[in-house]
């Protein structure tokens, strides 16, 4: 029996019975995707880690409210989106600086100076977007959610999300063109 045979819904059921192991598996299964979104959204790996941890803890506590355990991933992502919003707002209250110095570094990734610089430019361009545009852009183009899924995750309307993605793309094209063109 391979662990991949077990569905999220079965793991949710196990976790609801009070068992730790199934929830551990849910964490292992979803943590990296959540980390990617949070890292791109917050621009800081440690903040991202805390946001993801916070999201899992809230999910653990509210698991009985997950109405469709077979879509646990989507439900969890909605919590994460909210945690990132809260964390972003809190940070702005304390410090107006958006940190770009801690661009996530992944194992096995090219760390040449050129590559690192390009990665930082992208993160800086993202940081210059408003949080709503950044969120919409990441959900659409990086996480590849449909607009309907995005509406569920963010609570915003589909037309509003389409507009945000469009604006975000315009801004990013403009800023990154400056980098590319020198």
């Amino acid at each position, binding site marked *: 029996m391979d662990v991949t045979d077990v569905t999220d819904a079965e793991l949710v059921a196990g976790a609801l019975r*009070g068992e*730790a192991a199934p929830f551990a598996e849910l*964490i292992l299964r979803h943590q990296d995707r959540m980390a990617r979104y949070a890292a791109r959204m917050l621009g800081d790996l440690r903040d991202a*880690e805390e946001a993801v*941890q916070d999201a899992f803890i809230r999910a653990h506590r509210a698991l009985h409210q997950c109405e469709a355990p077979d879509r646990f991933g989507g439900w969890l992502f909605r919590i994460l989106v909210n945690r990132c919003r809260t964390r972003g707002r809190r940070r702005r209250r304390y410090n107006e600086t958006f940190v770009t110095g801690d661009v996530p570094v*992944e194992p096995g990734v090219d760390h040449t100076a050129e590559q690192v610089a390009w990665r930082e430019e992208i993160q800086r361009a993202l940081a210059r977007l408003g949080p709503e545009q950044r969120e919409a852009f990441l959900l659409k183009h990086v996480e590849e959610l449909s607009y309907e899924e995005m509406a569920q995750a963010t609570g915003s309307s589909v037309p509003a999300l389409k507009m945000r993605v469009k604006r975000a793309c315009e801004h990013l094209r403009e800023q990154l063109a400056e980098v590319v063109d020198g």
Partner: protein
Amino acid sequence: MDEPELNDTLRRAVEELRRPVSLGQNFAPRVLSAARRRRSPLAGAMDWLLRPRLSPLGGFVLVGAAAAVLLLLLRANTPAIPTHPVTRIQFVLRAPAARSVTIVGDFNNWDPSATPLATAAGSGGIWSVVVPLHTGRHEYAFVVDGRAWVSDPIAPRSTDQDFGAPNSVVTIS
């Protein structure tokens, strides 16, 4: 993806942004630990300890990126030895094809039969046990199917290898 919105530069940026970000296998225990600490003490641990379990698994193959989760549950004072605080630690190993898993360490005289882990149907081969530990630095290992000594893939390793494979370490402060 709505490609028309993306020119070549933006497409390159998106590819970069889609690179995975890994939190590593140490992340899960930290989350579980934090989640447990915010719950009522004992409740989850007692559920876990008292639940009867079945092992539907056969054969011994430790499946790939196996995760062992070590979970700090709660601190409590044992009535019998009030001066020694005890912390309940949940040790978890993912071994989908194992028929039995036990834990050995300086807390059970390294006795391979003393502390079996349990698994539950539908858990994906995740084995678990709660062990009360005193303050200190403890070394341990898992024994799978009575013969294979396996260190905890996510815990720190011991500095010595006196008897072959290194042990894992948990420090209770």
